[in-house]
């Protein structure tokens, strides 16, 4: 009953005219971010974070969260219509989404992806509602050793999922940790790497780095890879009048697919580092292996579109659990969300839900509403997004540079931070180009100061002995889970990659 009263309290906070407007704007922006190939939710969140500074924290967090899960909805539109995923989590949606469109079923595919995203997102939020208080309860017994181990878990699991090279992933994380040490050491009052500069006393601010790496870095990389020369490709035509809506058979044949995709996606989403991309590829692979007609997959099978769509949306909801209850972001997008919380003086973690019930439950309640809004937008605003797909990258590119620069400046009215953003953009491009991970850098930059503080507290408690990590049951559990994840996540990743490679080879 407590959950229901909390949820109703959250709904009463979320349903105010201004908050609903923020939610609508966030959902629209999220979809636009998702539609633009080369830009993921982390880039969208980082670029638009400064825009929320003048807003009320609840409205701002609702809007940012809507951008985050809205990107999952938007990314699929391009997967279906131009065979280009708007972001990595919608790669699996191209496998059957585009063949469906080529078969003249673009309308039903677009509607079913919206319904599947809605089901995945809503099941995910229901599971958050039930599980977040439980996670919060368990994590209340955690002390500095557990927090240090959790930060390590978040970083290590992300690094093993990077794929190209774990060494480059670790180096990326170490750069983030190093940047996190700049500024005055709060325990000793000693300046570190400030070189007498007043601008560096407070440390390197997260926003310019995130905007530079995700916004400009991704943009430069897109230009390097020639995305601006490819145009929007040929957009599959669809008609709003003829055969736009799915048949009853489409719904009936995919009802269990939606259930399986939602649960699988949510579980994978809760694991730090795994994320929506792995969830969607795994859901696709699972669905094909369970299907009575696996040969139809890759040729326009509705279940092949519905499975990854439910999974990636459920995963984006699942990723909110470690963020809200442990204060540990499992991905670059949730790291930006964590930074947003911190900007408003909020610290997600075990006590977050009990100390900030209005904000926590307002956010959860807004996710129910957000999924409804996104369902409606996804179906009725498709022509608008088709127009956005047509905007050439060579026009979009300079416009993104403007928004990144002015957005960064607006935070502290600092030219130094603006120049830092440009520098981070160039570094981000080279990192992307040479297989490093900007996401690991950003995650480490956010988690670094927390990890350092926790490690130093732990060493003080244990008088310099690392044995404390194996003497506390909670620490032992976290070490065990981390080892299990480090073993199983690459296997999950390989299953997902195999599904992707099979589809590529097949067509």
């Amino acid at each position: 009953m407590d959950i229901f009263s909390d949820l109703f309290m959250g709904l009463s906070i979320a349903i105010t005219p201004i908050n609903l407007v923020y939610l609508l704007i966030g959902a629209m922006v999220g979809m636009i971010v998702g539609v633009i190939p080369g830009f993921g939710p982390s880039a969208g969140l980082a670029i638009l974070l400064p825009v929320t500074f003048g807003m009320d924290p609840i409205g701002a967090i609702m809007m940012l969260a809507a951008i985050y899960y809205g990107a999952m909805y938007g990314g699929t539109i391009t997967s279906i219509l131009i065979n280009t995923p708007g972001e990595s989590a919608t790669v699996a949606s191209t496998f059957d989404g585009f063949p469906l469109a080529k078969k003249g079923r673009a309308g039903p595919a677009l509607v079913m992806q919206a319904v599947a995203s809605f089901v995945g997102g809503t099941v995910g939020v229901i599971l958050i509602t039930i599980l977040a208080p439980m996670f919060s309860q368990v994590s209340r017994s955690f002390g500095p050793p557990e927090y240090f181990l959790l930060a390590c878990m978040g970083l290590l699991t992300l690094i093993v999922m990077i794929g190209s090279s774990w060494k480059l992933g670790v180096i990326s994380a170490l750069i983030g940790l190093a940047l996190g040490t700049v500024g005055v050491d709060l325990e000793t009052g000693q300046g570190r790497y400030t070189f007498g500069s007043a601008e560096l006393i407070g440390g390197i601010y997260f926003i310019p780095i995130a905007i530079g790496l995700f916004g400009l870095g991704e943009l430069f990389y897109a230009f390097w890879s020639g995305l601006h020369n490819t145009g929007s490709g040929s957009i599959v035509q669809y008609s709003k009048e003829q055969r736009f809506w799915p048949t009853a058979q489409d719904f009936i044949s995919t009802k269990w697919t939606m259930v399986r995709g939602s649960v699988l996606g949510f579980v994978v989403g809760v694991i730090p580092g795994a994320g929506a991309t792995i969830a969607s590829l795994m859901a696709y692979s699972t669905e094909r292996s369970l299907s009575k007609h696996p040969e139809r997959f890759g040729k326009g099978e509705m279940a092949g579109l519905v499975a990854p769509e439910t999974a990636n949306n459920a995963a984006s909801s699942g990723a909110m659990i470690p963020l809200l209850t442990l204060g540990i972001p499992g991905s670059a997008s949730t790291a930006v969300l964590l930074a947003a919380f911190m900007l408003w003086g909020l610290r997600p973690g075990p006590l977050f839900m009990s100390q900030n019930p209005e904000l926590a439950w307002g956010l959860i309640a807004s996710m129910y509403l957000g999924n409804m809004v996104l369902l409606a937008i996804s179906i009725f605003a498709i022509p608008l997004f088709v127009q956005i797909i047509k905007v050439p990258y060579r026009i979009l590119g300079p416009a993104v540079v403007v928004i990144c620069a002015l957005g960064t400046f607006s935070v502290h009215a600092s030219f130094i931070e603006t120049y830092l953003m440009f520098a981070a953009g160039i570094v981000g491009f080279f990192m992307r180009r040479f297989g490093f991970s900007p996401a690991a850098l950003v995650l480490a930059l956010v988690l670094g100061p927390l990890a350092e503080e926790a490690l130093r507290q732990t060493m003080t408690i244990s008088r310099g002995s690392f044995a404390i990590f194996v003497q506390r049951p909670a620490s032992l559990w976290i070490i065990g889970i981390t080892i299990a994840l480090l073993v199983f996540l690459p296997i999950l990743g390989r299953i997902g990659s195999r599904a992707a490679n099979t589809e590529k080879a097949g067509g």
Partner: protein
Amino acid sequence: MRIVFLVALLGGAVFYSYVAFIDLSFFNQRGRPGAGFFPRIVGVAMVVLVLWAMVDALRDRRAAATNGFHDGLGDTGSGWQDAAKLVLLALTYAVLLRIFGGFVSTIIYLGLALSVLNPGRHLQNALVAVIMPIVVYLLFDRLLNASMPPALIDLPF
């Protein structure tokens, strides 16, 4: 190029470690972990891993030279050229921002960038170069009450 990037990273890592060992103490006066405790661990790890990555990169380069392997999407020359153009334009914008402020520099930058990246479409480029700064000004300065970069020189607007 990868080797150059790794060498730059190694330089940064060595400098970071040097400062951690020279300026920052591992333990504070009470025998607890000091300001240099974490940086020293991070710095040493970074130096070791960057060196390791450099060895890998050199080995890969030798293998690529033997097999005549081309290592990326945009490595055809035009990819680097296009990315360099955008980087240079972005850096020009950074300089313009300081001199002319947010509004005027955005008009100049967009006009310049679009004429380079989207040549021949003069009307479209001019419209974007004028409308976009107005929208951005209204959004940041009026609606969100956020500050736009001020100009270094006095401008009438």
